[in-house]
């Protein structure tokens, strides 16, 4: 029979053990600072490989404020828990990672711990980067350490208690971080595995395209079922895809490579920078990503495929006559006919004109956000690059007009049930904070 003292002793041991364990989880040692390595000490082929990997990882998107110096950080990333500011990953010795050894860099990528031993917020998606191989981490390190050092001190995160305690992150990791490198699936092709390695790792597609739980972690059982970034919806890229025309690997490759596809639409919002980066990396890597994601989409059910083929056939026989009457939305119909049809319904197929809206994921998606954003902001030209330009209607249309238009588009160009909250979504989209809208201007 246990005496109170014994029980007390066991509890004490348990608590101490728990505390030690907790401390062991929370506490990470600092890794010694090093002299900033000379850029010439890195092999140029390695640096180039690192650059391609950094493009796949979209590092410059989060770690650069638009119009400011590359990789100097400072971008505000809104999360449900507050605002996190991206860090300076230039090799600046004082404010960047100039004094980080390769081991420190690798630890950050694999376990989300900085050189000083502090836990990093999973806004930096190390739950994905943990899959990156040591070899690729070495290349990334070489690339980053040969960038121009920029003196830019970190901005303080705006998080409320308890989220501003790094201890909380330790708990989060315990629950959600599965560290370890990518394990190939030997039943699949080399290209598929390469794609899986990139997608699950560096490209961290799920960070946007997978829904998250209340603690902000990806719901792994709903992989690629869709997510939210800033004020955009990142569509489901699995079998729940709302795309009217089912995606295949070729279409994905074209879309990821050049930023648009005539049967699907244009990459806008946060995706615009992703495809811009992917236009510069080796083609085989983009093909691999496309192959893997195509497998995530899966082969479409026969009737879905048939519907998609029908839509394509109808789009090909332009000029399409917009479905008229019967929508009970004469205002929206008139707006479409007056403001949109000349590009979206006429003879001008993408890239010259707008996509046939019956093919657009935005119109068939779960809510009106993406469509509202696009109608308001349009699509801006990119310096020196061939690409779609669409006027924005924020200053010529009122909220009511846009809501009526979107309601009409949903009814006429998709088979999905009507959107709810369209008016509120339009209002919010118009009031989108400047930073998020800057994302659409790479």
């Amino acid at each position, binding site marked *: 029979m246990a005496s109170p003292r014994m029980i007390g002793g066991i509890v004490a041991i348990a608590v101490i053990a728990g505390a030690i364990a907790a401390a062991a989880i929370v506490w990470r040692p600092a890794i010694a600072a090093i002299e900033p390595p000379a850029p010439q000490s890195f092999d140029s082929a390695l640096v180039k490989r690192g650059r391609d990997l950094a493009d796949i990882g979209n590092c410059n998107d989060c770690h650069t404020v638009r119009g400011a110096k590359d990789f100097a950080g400072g971008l505000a990333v809104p999360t449900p828990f507050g605002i996190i500011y991206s860090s300076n990953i230039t090799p600046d010795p004082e404010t960047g990672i100039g004094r980080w050894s390769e081991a420190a860099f690798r630890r950050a990528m694999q376990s989300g711990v900085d050189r000083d031993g502090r836990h990093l917020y999973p806004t930096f998606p190390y739950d994905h980067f943990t899959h990156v191989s040591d070899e690729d981490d070495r290349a990334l390190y070489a690339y980053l350490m040969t960038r121009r050092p920029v003196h830019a001190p970190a901005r303080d995160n705006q998080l409320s208690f308890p989220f501003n305690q790094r201890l909380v992150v330790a708990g989060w990791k315990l629950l959600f971080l599965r560290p370890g490198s990518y394990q190939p699936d030997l039943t699949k092709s080399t290209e598929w595995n390469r794609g899986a390695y990139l997608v699950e790792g560096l490209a961290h597609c799920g960070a946007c395209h997978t829904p998250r739980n209340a603690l902000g972690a990806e719901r792994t059982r709903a992989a690629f079922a869709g997510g939210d970034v800033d004020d955009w919806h990142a569509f489901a890229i699995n079998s729940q895809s709302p795309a009217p025309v089912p995606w295949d690997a070729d279409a994905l490759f074209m879309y990821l490579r050049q930023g648009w596809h005539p049967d699907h639409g244009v990459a806008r919002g946060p995706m615009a920078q992703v495809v811009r980066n992917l236009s510069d990396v080796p083609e085989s890597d983009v093909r691999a990503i496309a192959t893997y994601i195509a497998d995530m989409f899966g082969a479409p059910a026969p009737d879905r495929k048939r519907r998609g083929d029908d839509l394509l056939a109808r789009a090909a026989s332009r000029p399409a006559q917009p479905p008229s009457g019967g929508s009970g939305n004469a205002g929206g119909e*008139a707006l479409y006919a007056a403001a949109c049809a000349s590009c979206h319904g006429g003879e001008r197929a993408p890239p010259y004109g707008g996509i046939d809206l019956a093919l657009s994921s935005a119109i068939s998606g779960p809510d009106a956000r993406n469509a509202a954003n696009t109608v308001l902001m349009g699509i*801006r030209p990119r310096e020196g690059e061939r690409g779609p330009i669409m006027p924005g209607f924020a200053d010529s249309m009122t909220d009511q*007009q846009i809501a009526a238009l979107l309601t009409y588009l949903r009814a006429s160009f998709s088979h999905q049930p009507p959107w709810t909250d369209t008016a509120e979504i339009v209002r919010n989209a118009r009031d989108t904070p400047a930073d998020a809208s800057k994302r659409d201007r790479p």
Partner: protein
Amino acid sequence: MMKLNVNGSDRQVDADPDTPLLYVLRDDLQLNAAKFGCGLGQCGSCTVIVDGKAVLSCVTPVVLLEGRKVTTLEGLGTIEAPAPIQRAFIEEQAAQCGYCIAGMMMRAQALLQRNSKPTEAEIRAELGLHLCRCGTHMRILRAMHRAAKLMQTADASPTQRRTP
């Protein structure tokens, strides 16, 4: 028939609701400043102001404009009594062929009405949609800065012509 308020006057216009404002301005109302450059919303030559905001009149059908105030370059000033933006462009000689200029000026006017002290970066960002093929960009930027100054000084007295 529909009613449009243009440069402070109500005008009756016989145009289908899907007619882009550009054609109504030029064809129905005989106003010259807004220009046809592309009709696709890609070049900015057609820019006018609607309720204080710059819009591309070639992609703005008149059905959107019931009850709204349209301002064109003609509504800002005349040769005899030019508005600050017009004075600035004349003083900087900010034109070569001049075809793109009216659109630029309306964009500038809309910007200066809401931001009287724009930075160089803000001006450049604002003009991102506007094309100039002759290469008059430097003068256009200078003219916008000059217009900002002219709009700030209450008594804009005639300034010396800049000599190179």
